[in-house]
């Protein structure tokens, strides 16, 4: 069965970029355009990896992570994919419970490799 991924970003173009980058690798990909939607999807699905933007309407990526982790969903792997690229932003994200952190702009090729690496762990 193909690994299941969730891409959450309020920028449609970026979602398209991520999805286009990863779709050739045979993943099943869901999309969410804001934090709330992302949270709901995480609740109702078992994703192998969640790619979360930081700045999103409704709930920020950070809030989504905190809520998910607070509710005991420790097993979901979450990757923070954000334009907040400073060192302290990464620290905050990891503290909240992000497993991976990639800053924008990112290289799609690298992203694909990282995702592949994570999913084959």
């Amino acid at each position: 069965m193909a690994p299941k991924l969730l891409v959450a970003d309020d920028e449609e173009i970026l979602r398209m970029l991520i999805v286009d980058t990863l779709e050739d690798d045979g993943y099943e990909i869901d999309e969410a355009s804001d934090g709330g939607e992302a949270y709901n999807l995480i609740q109702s699905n078992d994703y192998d990896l969640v790619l979360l933007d930081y700045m999103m309407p409704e709930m920020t990526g950070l809030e989504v992570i905190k809520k998910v982790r607070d509710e005991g969903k420790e097993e979901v792997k979450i990757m923070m994919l954000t334009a907040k690229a400073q060192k302290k932003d990464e620290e905050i994200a990891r503290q909240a419970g992000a497993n991976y952190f990639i800053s924008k702009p990112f290289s799609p090729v690298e992203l694909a490799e990282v995702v592949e690496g994570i999913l084959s762990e």
Partner: protein
Amino acid sequence: MNKRWKTSLSKQFIWFMSGFLVLILLSAIALGVYSQSVEQKYRTKVNQLRTEQQYAVQLEDSLNHMFFEARGYLAFRLESPFLNEYRKEQETIDQKIDDLDERITDSDQSAFIEDLRKYLIRYDSLLNQAMTFVENDSTSGLRSLSQGGGGSDLVYTMRDRMRELVRSIEDEIYSTEEELIERLSNIQFLFVVFVIFLLLIATIIAGIMARRIGKPLQELAVASSQVSSGESVEMPHVRREDELGELARAFNLMVSNIQQNERALITTNEALVKQSEELKGSKSELEQNVQEMNVQKLVLEHRNELNRSLASTLNKNELLQSIITNMIYILNSDKGLVVMMNQGRDYASLGIRQDKVHEWIDSMMDGPVVKVIDQKKHHIVRRTMTAGEGGYHDGVGHSSDLYLPILSDDSVVAILCITRIGKDFNNQELQQISGLSGQISLALDKLRLYETTENERMVNMEILNTIREGIQLVDREGTTRAINNQMCTMLDTCFPEGDQEKSYGEWSKKFLQQVDSKDRDAVQEYICNVIAGVKPKQSELIYQANGEASLFIQMYYEHIYNADKFIGSIFVHRDITREHQVDEMKNEFVSTVSHELRTPLSSVLGFTELMLSKELKPEKQKKYLNTIYKEAKRLTSLINDFLDIQRMEAGKQNYEKKPVNLQEIVEEVLDSYRINATKHSFFIEDLTDCYELIGDADKIKQVFNNFISNAVKYSPDGGSIVIRFYEKQGNLFVDIEDEGLGIPEDALSKLFTKFYRVDNSDRRQIGGTGLGLAISKEIVTAHGGGVTVTSALGKGSTFTLSFPLTTKKEMQPEKSDDEMDAAVLIVEDDDSLALLLMEEITENGWSVHHCRSGETAIKLLETMNPQGIVLDIMLDGRMNGWDVLKAAKEKEHTKDIPIFVSTVSEEKQRGFDLGASDYLIKPYPPKKLTKSLIKSLVNKTNNGKILVPDYSIEDTEEGS
């Protein structure tokens, strides 16, 4: 008894009264007894008489009865009953006569009784004769008997005599009554006499009493009133022995005592007066002594006072005033002054007018002062006293002026000049003065020293206070030695009572309270180390202070050494809040910018990389390229906006301000949207005629571009966008109203913040940098205006911009250029048609002004003078084209302007009747209008008006 009588007035009075009463009583009893006996006598007599009368009457009756019986017998000759009755009656009569006889006292009556007895015997004998005749039936004997007259006459006589008796008894009763009445009247008379007698006696007694008591009492009263008014009285010697006599004697004794006492008192009084005079003499002597003592005391007091102020006063004016005041008292002088020989010629005076003092000081170097300064010893000038000093005295006296130098280090530091009027200074006083001058000089030296240090201190403090940093000087114990104003204002750590020299415990408590709790421990440790002379870990410290506002303060220190000995520390507190804020803002800005740039950059880089690394279909490639292009453009506009906002915030944005017409700008912006808009329709409501303001046209265009593009962007489902102009209180307001998504309530306040974008996925699809509104607001604010917003979620938003209007006066020339002299006025509510016509007309070289309502047209015509009017009939608002036509033709200054009616209505005749120059029925080719215009206007040129085409149409062309 006689003695008691004589000594008691009350007894005399009682005796008199009791005698009087006894007399009354006795007389009354006598009178009573007498009247009683009279009455008694009367009653006895009357009773006796009445009994007599009764017997007499009964006797009379019996007689009559006897006669009647006798006659009966004689007449009827019946023995029984008449003769029996007669015998019975005879016996009764005899009995009664006896009874009567017993009672009768009167001799006449006794005689009558005797007679009566005799008569009765005769009558009986007669009757016996008669009876014999009767027994014999001798009528003739009877007749002769009766005719002989014996019987009847006797009866009649007896009867008469009987009556007489009764009458005489009655008379007697009557006379007895008369006698009684007479007696009673006598008694009454006696009673009256008795009453008069009593009154007489009472009067006599009263007279006697009055003489015996009233007179001496009156004499006593007069005498005592004389005594009380102080006259001497000699009372006549009274021989009486009663109370009055005693009173009089006592009075006399009292008077004589009083007179004696009075004489004694007078003597004593004289002695006392004498003593008092002696005492007065010694008292005035004592008073004089006391006065002298007081003067000495006052002098001593003033000496004390002078010593005290010399020793303790550090205020120069106070000291000088004290010196002169006390010296004048000590020397018992009248006036004087003290002048310091310093630059300012500080002085103090007593008893001299201010202007005189100044005059004296100004000219003192011309007088004796020079000599005093040179010789450095006192100098006395003896002179005639001035009129003022002499006061009201006429005589010529003299005054002495004492000039006394105050020496310090062998130079004169002050001069005292003291004047004494009418008396010289003696040697003893002058000696005293030299001692005092030494003291004064010491005090002045001290004062000078104090002033110098005080001045230095003030200068130091002044320097400290001008420094912008808060500075606090503490000694080795941590006690504050000096603190500048800045420290107080910055941190509110000072104490209100001026005395800031507080121990470490006191000031640090107040100070540390202001330090934010997160920094407090570090600050305390730092301060403690510094005070102890230990170098703290960091040479400076930044802390946050929470006073009225939150401040960021940088604190550093410096240890102070005096001859290599650590004596204290200086703390310097520098307010770096502004730098801190700027720093924070910079960081935030950089971080935000980096975030905002990274997003489009991600797309550009990502898709490029995808294109490079993947084999893609041509459609996908094109899609990617388009995306890359769009994102790159977004990146560009972001960078432009960043630069704008950066410039504006740095205050480096230059505005090329000149008069602009806001309506034209808005029209221009709108045109570009009109062309592309498919879902939106645009409306302009102009509720004003003033669009003129001073501003940078390009920047204002940017503002409207931003607002109108927002209105379009945030109403994705289309709708109308209304732009409304109106004037209020000298400001031109522009509403930009859309029927879009609206803005949530909580977002309204943050709307104009940089990078703020309403969080909503609907909106995320709508691109933007989040800087547009911030930039727009900056621009409008730079023009002196403002931006406000109202919004209802789901219904739309209204942004209201305001710009201050330039005053009419300012704008007058501008207005005349493009409005007043516009050749053609188009009144048309259909903007597109108006635009079409305007293009047509301007192409032909005329300037055009367009308005949408009849009211505006009429208002415009008051000031502008167009050469033609193109008038629609169906207009918005209250006035239609007919109304405008009529109004224009009615007014003197507009009635000659040719009016071209342009309408769908076919009431051609009505138009011409109202004075229209031409009537064009829509739709018509625009050329037709220009032809008509040319025709009409050329005609007008003949009347002397020359039509000059206006080339200010370029703007309009550009905008269209």
